[in-house]
């Protein structure tokens, strides 16, 4: 009954990198365009070189809006390559690529099985090892139903795999599609739940049943940092599951924070940032890296950073050094969250207007009504009829509002306090 397979999910083929503010230089842009495809190629090659029995894709092969023809063709091309090498493939669709989405007329290879909108059970291979895959695809984008529960108790088999795109235990960081609990999954009698949807790899349950999210194989956002890939899964004759994470990404994301307090001059800061870039590239295993930097802390340098174009010049300086290499490290932006030196605690004790401003900001954090007043008027923009389709999802929530209030306070302080008197 021994079986080896690759568990992947959330390929999001041909969907763009998000969060990029600056237009990438040509060499970088080319890599970014092709990064999801390259990661998929890596997966296909891994299956072939490891001679696995099957490739499992747990939904979100494409993004709904971005289900490009190129993506579909490339996907099928990969499956055909696998089929030619005798590797079977099993695909289910998720919220981003539901079955009702448009699909080009493509010929899937014989060795590929795409699950439909009802649970199906398919043997992994023609030989009689008895491993069965149960899978289901989203018929439409919004599936609020607990699909795990719909499966019920499966027919007993030597080893069973469940292929599903779902949010287990209502992870608040992800959309609540096909919500279910670990208990629901355990109740099904499935031995290995090959899940998709959560982009950060995690193993909510190691055994009985094993519940595994491999994460997406290529990060596409500043928050999707670190190595990304698939699980190479080996099930022994006793039904024991061995997980081996394999990075498949070709471009990595990194977020770097630098406290400006320690630097006296722009050059010192730049030197430190260069060092960080080197570090990030060194740690990327020969892959290219997209870097987002954030300058934090308080320091005199803030005064310099606030001068027009200083940050842009820093970005340019860094990219001149790092972005044209291969592999590259491209600094996509530098966010300035630093502040000028300012003794907030002392000023809070004062009786002047500035002290009142600081106290008001502090009060807002415990006074929801005040917080609401401070955030008043934001909907003018975020819900504006022309822009809401772009901005409504970015409208600041409570947490974000707190961050914005801090930034607003720093801005107000900068404006009210005279330089010399910090």
């Amino acid at each position: 009954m021994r079986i080896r397979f690759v568990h992947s999910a959330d390929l999001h083929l041909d969907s763009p990198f998000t969060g990029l503010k600056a237009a990438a230089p040509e060499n970088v842009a080319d890599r970014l365009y092709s990064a999801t495809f390259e990661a998929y190629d890596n997966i296909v090659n891994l299956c072939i070189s490891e001679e696995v029995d099957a490739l499992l894709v747990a939904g979100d092969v494409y993004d709904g809006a971005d289900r490009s023809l190129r993506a579909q063709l490339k996907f099928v091309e990969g499956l055909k390559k696998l089929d030619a090498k005798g590797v079977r493939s099993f695909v289910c669709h998720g919220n981003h690529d539901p079955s009702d989405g448009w699909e080009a007329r493509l010929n899937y290879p014989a060795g590929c099985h795409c699950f439909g909108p009802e649970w199906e059970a398919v043997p992994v291979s023609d030989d009689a090892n008895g491993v069965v895959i149960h899978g289901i695809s989203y018929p439409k984008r919004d599936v609020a139903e607990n699909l795990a529960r719909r499966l019920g108790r499966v027919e007993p088999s030597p080893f069973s795999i469940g292929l599903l795109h779902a949010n287990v235990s209502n992870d608040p960081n992800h959309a609540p599609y096909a919500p279910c609990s670990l208990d629901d999954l355990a109740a099904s009698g499935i031995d290995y739940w090959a899940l998709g949807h959560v982009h950060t790899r995690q193993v909510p349950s190691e055994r009985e049943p094993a519940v595994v999210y491999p994460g997406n194989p290529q990060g596409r956002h500043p928050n999707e940092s670190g190595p990304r890939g698939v699980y190479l899964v080996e099930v022994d004759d006793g039904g024991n599951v061995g997980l081996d994470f394999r990075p498949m990404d070709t471009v990595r994301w990194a977020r770097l924070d630098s406290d400006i307090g320690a630097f006296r001059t722009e050059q010192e800061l730049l030197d430190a940032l260069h060092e960080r870039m080197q570090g990030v590239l060194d740690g990327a295993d020969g892959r290219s890296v997209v870097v987002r930097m954030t300058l934090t802390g308080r320091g005199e340098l803030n005064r310099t950073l606030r001068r027009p174009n200083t940050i842009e010049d820093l970005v340019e300086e860094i990219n001149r050094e790092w972005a044209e290499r291969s592999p590259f490290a491209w600094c996509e932006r530098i966010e300035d969250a630093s502040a000028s030196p300012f003794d907030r605690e002392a000023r809070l004790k004062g009786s002047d207007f500035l002290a009142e401003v600081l106290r008001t900001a502090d009060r807002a954090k415990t006074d929801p009504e005040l917080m609401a007043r401070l955030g008043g008027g934001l909907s003018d923009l975020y819900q504006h009829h022309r822009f809401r389709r772009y901005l409504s999802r970015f409208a600041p929530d409570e947490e974000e509002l707190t961050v914005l209030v801090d930034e607003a306070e720093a801005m107000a302080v900068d404006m009210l306090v005279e330089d010399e008197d910090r």
Partner: protein
Amino acid sequence: MKISSLHIDGFGRFYKGAFGPFERPVTVFLGPNEAGKSTLLEFIRRVLFGFRTARGRAPSGYNDYPPLAGGRHGGNLTIVSDKGETVTVQRFQGAGGGPVRLTAASGGPLPEGDLSRLLGQHSREVFKNVFTFTLDELHDEALLKDDSVNVQIYSVGMGATKLPAARNALGSAKQALFLKGGSRHKIAGAGGELGKVDSQLAEVANNASAYSDLTSQLKEVEEELERLSGLRRKHQLELNQQKRLESAWEDWNDLNDAERELSRLPFIEDFPVDGISRLETLEERISTAQGEYKSASELVEGATAKAEAPVGHEAILTHSTEIRELGQGRTSFVNSVRDLPKRITELKDHERSLAATLKDLGAEWDEARLENFDLSMAVREDVSQYRERLQGAEQILGLSKSTLTQHVNLLEEAAEAEGRAKREIEAAGKPVGRKNGSKVLPAVCVAAGLTLLALGMVLGGSALFLGVAAGLALAGVAAYLFATGRPSAGADTEFARLARELERAQELAKQRHGRVEKCKKDVEEAELSLESVQRSWRQWLADRGLLEKFQPETVDVLQGKVELGRNQLGSLRSHRERIDAIQYDIDEYVAKAAPLASDFGVPFDRNDSNTVAAAAHRLIELHDEVNGKVNDRTNAETALMNAQHQLKTRASDLRKIEKEMEGLLHAGGTADAEDFRTRAEIVRRRMDLEEKRREAHSRLQRLSGPGEPLDALKKQLGDTDFQTIRDQASLAQEESDNADLEIRELSNRQGSIQKDLKNLTGEEESSRLRAERQRWLEEMRGHAREWAVRTIAENLLKEAQGKFEKERQPDVVRHSEEFFRNITDGRYQAVFSPLDSSEIQVTDSSGVPKQPSQLSRGTREQLFLSLRFGLIQDLGQRSEPLPVIVDEALVNFDPERGLRAARAFAELSRTNQVLVFTCHPTIVELFQDAAAQSGVQEPQVVPIG
């Protein structure tokens, strides 16, 4: 809190400076520009609130006031709190703004934190913006503009002078990002770009349905293409069949023609291979061989004539050696003949020169004597010695004679001296006889001494001699005087001395005489010696046949002449020999040429050197000519032998070829060349036809293809005709072309579909567009966030302001009202802020409310100051009141306004210490007047600089 004194250690231009104590409510620091007022003001601020903490570059316009005159950067302030405690605040530049040290009046240290209490928890900024009044702020543009005056004045009352500017900055920054209803803001820009990208994406999305259509179209096209290909194949086959018959037709005809003609031609067996070409080759070779035979005969003829030709004067070749010698000596002969007269002339010149030299030497001189005369070194040495000896003897004689003359002179002088001495003695002898002789003697001594002296001088004797003589004379006199002891004894002594002197003179004359005699003897000896030498010299001359009168010098000259003559004689003789040799050469050459010329008939005159040279030349020429002709004849004989041999060979070759020709004709079945040619032509024609038949046959076999017998093809060809074949072929071609055309069209269509499909599958446009969309989305999101931060900042300021207005503003306004009333002398009664309004209004004495914008500029300034004072008082009620600083604030006020403002400060000084910094003495007066009017203590004036 009040500042009572300053102690500067080092700060700007100040070094170890102390100011204070300041004991009155108002202190005016008066000093000219650059005296250090601003420095003092900064000193107070920095000791109280710390030095600049920032490392690195200072903000523009910031002055660190380093201790230029020395000292440690900083110093002390002594302050007195409201409660009366005296504290010394000491601060020096250092880390974190400089550590502060507080000391109580008792000398004990106080915790650092007490400073903030003593400063009423106020920040440096509050101290600067609320408690310090400068010229600038009263001339702030905002205070002069009606539209913003209210906000400005109002914000002063909150201690937030930068609030209006902050609001404006936030507002305009927000508008640039987003303005409700606007279209030129950044969000709208990003929105526009997003819209564009979205519509491009929508277009790209259509590509997908196109892909499906194209895929099915492609399938249809491919099926149709397959059908047409089948049809075209069928027509091609038919066409190929007809083409095959068409291409076989010519061969079919050739085959038939060849067979027909062959049957008509006679058959000739065993004709020689390549008969014609061999015949022609042989004919050509015969012709060549005949030509060669003919030229060989001609060659023999020519060679025979040359070999038998006669040669004249052949005998000359037996004289080759003499002729060669004549040739070699000819140039030398010509030169000798030419040079001989020149040489003879030169000989005569030499003879003349020698004769002249001999004549110089004397008649007895001839060539033989010249040659035999002894010019050896020994002779020359003899002459030299004689010369020296003669000269030496003559010199000795000369010297002896001169010595004699000297000694004769000396003798004469000595004799004269003797005579003189005698005369003196005689003269002295008379008085001696008459008187006491002893008295005469000294006088005689003196006389004798003088005589001696005179004689010495005359004779030129030595000084020593004179000294001794004089000494002797004086000693004699002295001895005498000592012996006698009486002056009367002097005459005797003189006489004795003269006698001695005479004796001595005589002795001297005698000596000299002897010497003269010796000199005379010497002269005689010298004369004898000279004579002896001269005799010897004369004998030497005689021995050599020379005249006795010759001096050695003469002999030197003679030797030179003899040498010259001997050289001339040498040259003369060598010339003579040379001429003899030339003459000999000429004679010999003539003797050699003469018999040859006579033998070979060459004109010759032995006395005419020109004919001799010409004859020699002609003989040489003749010898060379004869030699050449004999050589030619020898060569011709050899050539003749060769030519005869060649002629023989040619004849044999020709016979061999003619035999070959006979053989060839015989092999061709004939003896005649013409007949041979006819038979050869028949054979060639038969071979051509057989070849043609074979080729046609094999081509037809190839066309009939594998598996199909040739006979079948022959049958097909036999059953049809050419026109029918052509008609059927063109029909098949036409149908095949039609199918081709359709296939081409469909193939193009297929290619175009495939290309479209490839474009669709390979297109990265959508990837790019989606990335671009994300970028614009991010851009918009970024702008939105910036806008949100500014909106919240605005709200934050508004909230803080609202709270301030609600909780603090009433008190501030209340305090201000009192100030304003006082400053305006009651022209304005009330200051108030309408409920829920960020405005300040005033009421004049008649109760009419007015906006600040309706007030005069002066009144606005007073209102501004009043509000500030109100705030100061309000703050003072909540915490320690701080000193108020007036930094030239009232300079530009007119006197009346200035006085009112000064009065306001005087009023304020009741609660807060007022420190005025100015360079204008009028300001001092202003404050003095204001104090008097307000009934507060007169200001203390502290001069600076």
